[in-house]
């Protein structure tokens, strides 16, 4: 699949924003001033909104994007739009109350955490629902999206917040645990993607053409000598060239470096900047991971080409 930069940026950035919203909603301790309340909420909402806005750049008609809110009964993409807007609206109310009264309304917090998680889930389901792309068509896809959003949100919250321990554990340990869970899910995902081929449906050039029963089928001539929308969008091959190297980059910058920084933080009294550094490194790793998510995925249409 063609890796569109706007979509990669969207899924990574709003994933992090929604992860932070999730942590805020659960009541992650933050500095007490109204200004801090404003800035933290702005960052969480801003990352989410920046991602959403960038995702409209890959639309043919961004000016009609509002129409995408109408089909939430059937479409995951529509559900994502609706639930993102609900999350941001609720976050706005939560932030307003927090700034005015200094109080963080617990039930409203739980609600925004729930909606943040639902939004990440709907994003993942846009891909996971597609039977045509076997790499994506798995429960591991939403698992990865949710876990990465949580890891990014936790690192950011650890860097911005005032807590040193939560539920009886140092935040560095909590953030490391989130990272380990996320990358374990991703390794499982990569492992499945490496072996799945089209075996989940049993599709092949034989079933695609219906000619498999007659013998071995091979493409003799493409319909056109040049490229077309389908070959550019779904039979994209360029991104796979550097797959192994990009995976190493993703693992080092997205997993090894942030983990090392968390351990360093443990040893040095958990200074905020180490968590923020770890967050930045994770984001870089996630861009590589998301690029591969698209570039390596094979679409059923490629059976015809």
């Amino acid at each position, binding site marked *: *699949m063609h890796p569109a930069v706007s979509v990669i940026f969207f899924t990574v950035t709003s994933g992090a924003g929604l992860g932070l919203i999730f942590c805020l909603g659960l009541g992650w301790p933050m500095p007490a001033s109204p200004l801090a309340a404003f800035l933290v909420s702005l960052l969480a909402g801003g990352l989410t909104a920046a991602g959403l806005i960038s995702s409209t750049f*890959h*639309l*043919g*008609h*961004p000016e*009609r*994007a509002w*129409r*995408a*809110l*109408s*089909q939430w*009964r*059937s*479409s*995951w*993409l*529509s559900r994502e*739009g609706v639930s993102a807007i609900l999350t941001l609206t609720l976050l706005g109310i939560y932030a307003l109350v927090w700034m005015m009264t200094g109080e963080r309304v617990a039930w409203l917090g739980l609600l925004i955490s729930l909606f943040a998680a639902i939004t990440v889930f709907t994003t993942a389901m*846009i891909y996971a*629902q*597609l*039977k*045509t*792309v076997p790499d994506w068509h798995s429960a591991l896809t939403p698992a990865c999206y949710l876990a990465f959003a949580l890891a990014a949100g936790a690192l950011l919250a650890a860097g911005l917040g005032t807590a040193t321990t939560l539920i009886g554990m140092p935040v560095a340990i909590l953030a490391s645990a989130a990272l380990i869970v996320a990358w374990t899910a991703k390794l499982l995902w990569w492992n499945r993607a490496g072996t799945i081929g089209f075996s989940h*449906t*049993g*599709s092949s*050039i034989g*079933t*695609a*053409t*219906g*000619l498999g*029963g*007659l*013998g*071995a*089928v*091979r*493409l*003799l*001539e*493409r*319909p*056109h000598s*040049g*490229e*077309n*929308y*389908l070959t550019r*969008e*779904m039979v994209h091959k360029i991104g796979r060239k550097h797959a192994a190297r990009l995976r190493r980059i993703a693992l080092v910058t997205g997993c090894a470096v942030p983990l090392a920084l968390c351990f360093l933080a443990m040893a040095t009294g958990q200074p905020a900047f180490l968590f923020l550094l770890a967050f930045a490194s994770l984001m870089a790793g996630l861009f590589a991971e998301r690029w591969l998510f698209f570039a390596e995925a094979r*679409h*059923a*249409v490629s059976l*015809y080409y």
Partner: protein
Amino acid sequence: MTTLPPSSEKKLGLVIDLDICVGCHACVVNCKEWNTGGYGAPLGDVDAYGDNPSGAWLNRIHTFEVTPEDAPNGGQAQIVHFPKSCLHCEDAPCVTVCPTGASYKRGEDGIVLVDEKKCIGCGLCAWACPYGAREMDPVENVMKKCTLCVDRIYNDNLPEIDRIPACVRTCPANARHFGDFADPSSNVSKMTAERGGMDLMPEMATRPVNKYLPPRPKTRPASERELAPALAPRTQEGLLGWIDRALEKLG
């Protein structure tokens, strides 16, 4: 609404006869021609006369080679020209993924259409279709797909003979047929039953309406013939034989 309608009364669609198609691309060209002037925005092209032309087409012909498993030395390979356009699936995944309601399946005849005024050009429907039947228009940035010539088949301004899809009307080999699959006595239902009409990628559970008739198996000679017996000189017969003999006598 991008939920699917309950099973439609009529199921209009195409039968494509892979035994007959000669791969001339006439249907492709006539489809492009008709749909550039008909339903919705024109079918766009980019760099049409340049080095790297590209454009939206609703029908494309692939050509495959099929080699039977037991063929000696890869012989008896069969060439199959393979037209591909929207199959107007009954469980169309392209419809249910659409966030705007632009993609829909008509309850009255099962035709799958895009309302171009609502389409935001997100491309998700093209990702959901296993067959590559949808293409983004490079000029209008809206999704394009086969309309089953909805603007011909019900068009009273056309002579009755033309009230069929442009591809069917133009096919010089008669490899394409249009009809109602819900009616067991229709031409398409009968052909499908007689010739074992098949679904493409049935495992994708899209339940395509369009059916493909498989190529008839090639007949094989009983034994391998010597290569090109015509090449051996036959000097005994006719005028050439007489000249040959005459020249030989001359010495």
